């Protein structure tokens, strides 16, 4: 890849002055050097696809929450890229307990201390955790 061919396709993932991709490219004499790039379309699309996948799964769960099948915790767990096993390690709740908290009725009875544990693991506020 030549230096002038290093793509600069900005999809908003990377930012100049903060974080950019370091690419290795050759000049006209064939000598290698580092060039900074803000992105490349094929890669941006792959990243976008991964997030679309997360969002579409979360959307399905959101519908179930609206229909009263699941608690908001299920939605925020999906949004936060967590699963029951990981959430269990971060909060200290057992998997079995978390599975119960995914039910709307049980979730409503949670103490604020327990809610705080979930909110902290998911880096959201308790208010956000309760809503969708």
């Amino acid at each position: 890849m030549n230096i002038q061919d290093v793509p600069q396709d900005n999809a908003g993932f990377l930012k100049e002055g903060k974080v950019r991709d370091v690419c290795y490219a050759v000049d006209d004499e064939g000598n290698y050097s580092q060039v900074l790039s803000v992105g490349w379309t094929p890669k941006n699309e792959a990243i976008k696809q991964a997030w679309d996948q997360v969002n579409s799964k979360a959307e399905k769960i959101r519908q179930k929450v609206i229909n009263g099948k699941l608690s908001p915790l299920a939605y925020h767990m999906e949004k936060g890229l967590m699963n029951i096993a990981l959430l269990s390690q971060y909060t200290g709740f057992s998997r079995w307990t978390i599975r119960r908290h995914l039910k709307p009725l049980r979730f409503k009875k949670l103490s604020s201390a327990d809610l705080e544990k979930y909110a902290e693991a998911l880096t959201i506020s308790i208010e956000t955790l309760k809503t969708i």
Partner: protein
Amino acid sequence: MILDFSHKMSAHCENGTTVNMLKFHGIKLTEPLVFGIASGCFFSYMPFIKVNDLPVISFRNWPGVIFNRATSKLGVSVERMKFSSIDKSMVKLDELIDNGIPAGLLVGVYYLTYFPPEYRFHFNAHNLVVIGKENGQYYISDPVMENIETLTEKELQRVRFAKGTYPPKGRMYWIKNVPEKINLELAICKGIKKNCDDMLRIPIPLFGIKGIRYMASRLKSWDTRYGEHKASLRLGQFIRMLEEIGTGGAGFRFMYAAFLQEAAGILNIPAMKELSEDMTKIGDSWRNFASMGAKNLRNRGVPATPYRDLSQLLLDIAGREEKLFRQLDNIIK
């Protein structure tokens, strides 16, 4: 106290911490040199290990290998630790900083506050160097960031003890002693030799050139086997591994080409410079594969680039990489 540490960006985090820490101790090497000495260029396809339900594909050696191999081949003595107690891990870190030694840490990126949100998934093999502590803030030299960043004690604890696959457990590493004189030529030769072995002679079909061929044979039928949607998700994962932050482009192939170029000069072997040019072309082919594959991520239904064609591209790359590493192997003998 904040150490006088020169922060230089790198394509890859572990190369970066190694380069910057070596420089702090007076050994000035470039990222490609460190990568090459550590025999970093690799390929592995492990369909039975999954990340986010998708098979793991890697273009470099395992986490931790770069620092270990580079330092051991240069004769630099290092120390590594991991912890079960969070408190002890922070005390030890403070102790190192107070003694004026920068400390490399293995961390998870999920809670890494300064990272771009789109990159914060559960990945537990990121590397950074702690270079100081002042007013409860830790100063961080993270090789993928353009500037020095800071983290509070609590934030740093959280990333050091991230959970999930391969938890970092507060892993920490630092340089103890550097020899007065390093034998760079020998280190480079050893690095290349080991890299040829890894690419050509691992007797398991998942690794090296065999791994690329194995993957090509599987890729051919991804769409019929998994359905168009799941096949495109796998392809997306592959493209991210190839190009996402840290490879320097084309799954480390450009970085390795840069290494061969530098090595050709140091060892005075002109033939190696030609191999560097070949490697650049192979890198271009990997990029071509990525852009052809990315077309399948957009539209649903019939794949824009048939998987059979993608498989063919991979086979072509495998053939050329095999030829290159065989030639390299002969030169270095």
